């Protein structure tokens, strides 16, 4: 592999990982807010990871 391929690979991996993480954060935040809204609306059983975490005593 030549140097340019290494540089391109490093930048793609770094920026790809950071962009994917940012997208995941947005999705997880939407899911948590949707869960909260569902609980507020119906007192229903939550359906996302945010509200299915074990509860504090």
């Amino acid at each position: 592999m030549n140097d340019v391929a290494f540089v391109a690979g490093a930048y793609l991996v770094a920026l790809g990982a950071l962009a994917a993480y940012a997208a995941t954060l947005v999705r997880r935040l939407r899911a948590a807010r949707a869960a909260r809204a569902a609980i507020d609306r119906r007192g229903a059983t939550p359906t996302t990871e945010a509200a299915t975490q074990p509860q504090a005593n």
Partner: protein
Amino acid sequence: MTSLRRVLAPPALVAVVAVATVIGLGLFVIPPDRLQGQVQRIMYVHVPSAWIAYLAFFVTLGASIRYLWRRDLGADRLAAASAEVGLVFTGVTIVTGTIWGKATWGIWWDWDPRLTTTALLFLIYAGYLLIRASLADRVRRARASAVIGIVGFANVPIVHFSVLWWRSLHQPPTVIRPGDPSIDHLLLAELLASVLAFTVLFLYLLDRRLDLERARDEADQALLVSS
């Protein structure tokens, strides 16, 4: 706290423009290094990622101390959010470092002090997040993770100074070191600009992650009230 967040938390567009600008400069404008050639350009993502990981774990340290001192769940949320963002940046540091290592040393990985302590740093904060996820009680979770957030930070200076304390394949520090930076001024300017841009990105990600932590706490609280 809220007004401070409003000042510190940049919009996504600002973070994207800042990072895109320094990436463009680093790839197409700044000349290659005289000795390493093109492959040295990896420095503009590798080094800022490492420094931001240090910064993130420092925030976790400070917030963990504050939690244990004041029992402030807001500080616990900040510690957790910063630890996760720091873990991502540590992962980026390791992967870009292995690519740079293959290009310059001819190997993807070596158990040298810097690489080993960085891998350990990744495992410490992965463990921090695993323990948080495994503890049901909100207060126990905050207390246990605060202790790990404080003790785990001890590895950060070890990572940084490992290249000075032990014989290492990894190059010694070029900027944060005794004496003047051993790097060309133009390359140093680009490196510092990259650190600044990655800091803006860090603040954006931290703000989003903090919102997520708060939304989860609110959902848990609402569930308790409704049940």
